[in-house]
């Protein structure tokens, strides 16, 4: 009995120490990334090529799936809105619902989910593979800061990609809504633009961009962090990749709720 209690306490203590150590490591990692980010933005940019490639892989290559998703989503929302809201005598709210759903909520979060699923795993896997292959040690040995050269371009690249993909998501989503409303409700282009322009506010665009930026930073930091948590074995790589994605999803949902709350305060 006493032995089992002692064992339980030992496990609890070890778990607590591990969580505390991980937390301290993550905080230190974030601070170092922030410091190197400032140096990257206001100093020399030796890793600009890495940044470009990251935007290419994360942003450009995800454009197709984002476009398809947003087109169909916008079409579904406008069709549902035009069929459902007039029953409550609130047909004019269709465009408000469209802006709220596409621009404020689903645009940033769905884009972030797509990037986390595609690029988050890729970043974690890539960095984990580099750790296993001793490439990180090679960078350090040659005097290259791996945070500055590997992490910062990825953080900026993923963040910029999420922001830009969100812009495309809005454009394609609203376009999809128009293309769907044209044959179903016979809405003319200028009428659609006028109705949309009446309800869409600049703060909606800014709020959406802010969410995207925060989501991009979260995805990049969590993915890089878990990629660098790989120590020796290649079997750790998929484990950390899965953890990175799942943790990204959880954080994205929680932070999205918090930001939405702040938006309406």
């Amino acid at each position: 009995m006493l032995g089992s209690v002692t064992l339980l306490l030992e496990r609890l203590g070890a778990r607590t120490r591990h969580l505390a150590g991980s937390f301290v490591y993550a905080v230190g990692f974030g601070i170092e990334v922030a410091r190197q980010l400032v140096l990257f933005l206001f100093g020399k940019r030796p890793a600009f090529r890495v940044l470009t490639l990251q935007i290419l892989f994360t942003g450009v290559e995800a454009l197709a799936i984002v476009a398809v998703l947003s087109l169909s989503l916008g079409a579904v929302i406008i069709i549902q809105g035009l069929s459902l809201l007039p029953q409550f005598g609130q047909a004019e709210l269709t465009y408000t619902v469209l802006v709220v759903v596409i621009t404020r909520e689903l645009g940033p979060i769905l884009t972030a989910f797509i990037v986390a699923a595609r690029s988050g795993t890729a970043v974690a896997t890539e960095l984990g593979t580099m750790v296993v292959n001793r490439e990180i040690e090679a960078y350090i040995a040659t005097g290259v800061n791996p945070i500055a050269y590997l992490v910062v371009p990825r953080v900026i690249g993923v963040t910029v990609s999420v922001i830009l993909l969100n812009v495309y998501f809005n454009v394609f989503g609203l376009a999809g809504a128009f293309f769907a409303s044209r044959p179903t409700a016979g809405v003319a282009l200028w009428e659609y633009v006028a109705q949309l322009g009446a309800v869409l506010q600049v703060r909606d665009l800014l709020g959406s961009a802010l969410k995207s930026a925060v989501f991009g930073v979260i995805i990049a930091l969590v993915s890089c962090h878990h990629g660098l948590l790989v120590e020796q074995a290649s079997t750790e790589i998929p484990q950390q990749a899965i953890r990175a994605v799942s943790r990204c999803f959880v954080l994205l949902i929680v932070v999205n709720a918090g930001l939405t709350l702040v938006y309406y305060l």
Partner: protein
Amino acid sequence: MRFRIRFSNQIVGLFVVTALVLVAAFIVALGINQRWFEQKHEYYSEFTTARGLTPGLAVSFRGFQIGQVRSVALTEDDTVRVTLSISDRHIDRITEHSVLQLQTNPLGIGGGLLLHRGRVDGEPLPPESLIPAWGSPRGVALRQAGLVETAAEGDIINELLEELPVILANVNHATTTGTQLLEQLQQMVAADATGPVPDLIRNADQMTVELRSLLALTGSLAENLRPLTEELRRPEGAVVRLVGPELDEALEKINRTLGHIEELSGFAAGSTPQIRALLYESRDALETGHAVLHGIRNNPLIRGGIQPRETPAAGFEGYRPEEF
């Protein structure tokens, strides 16, 4: 090297620039549509509650947005001051006697301020002026005076909800008046109150006592009347037995007398023409006699009149003088 890797800079540049152009186009379209650079005129209105009023709420006229709510603030005198901005293109529609109606949705979504233009032609209302609310006393007075164009834009539930504060105010006023009346009545019936009504109320007790004794007396009379009525009702009762024969005889006499009177009346009614003719003839005889007497009096032969007739004395005058 793959194409996209070789031209990654160009592809990413195109990706970024296109996104920036789209954002710029969005903002320009918003600016044109929302007329950011158009001159706007501010007005204000006063509501009793801020429920349903939020900054950015649309101000519409006949279904078209002509402005929006700038701010909603609670003033020191507990009214809700709503500041509106009306676009310059629609300033002519803000005429005197215009009224603002808050259109809310029972579901809590949608809504806006509807402008009802005043029935006045002329210059628009100067900026910074008050546009009365639909349910405010001034708004109600303007509507009742027929000075507001009340186009039916909202639904019936909203209109009822708009009227509800007025109805509640009236009910509140009636309740307050009733409460004051009750308080006055309570003061009247208080022990130390003076005046005719308190005296009357105070004397009510004594009056009630007197009325109660009177009712008791009336009750005893009624109790006494009851056996008498029963006796009268019974043919073999004591009353009938006591007054029965005399009463029947008297009634029989009265009946006979009435029969005689009836016969006399019938005879008189049947002899009326003869009596009338007799009276006419008598009157003619009297007139003839009067003429004869007049002629005799004027005749000189017999002037001096007719000797009075002497009544011959009776043979036996009796034992007593006639005057006795």
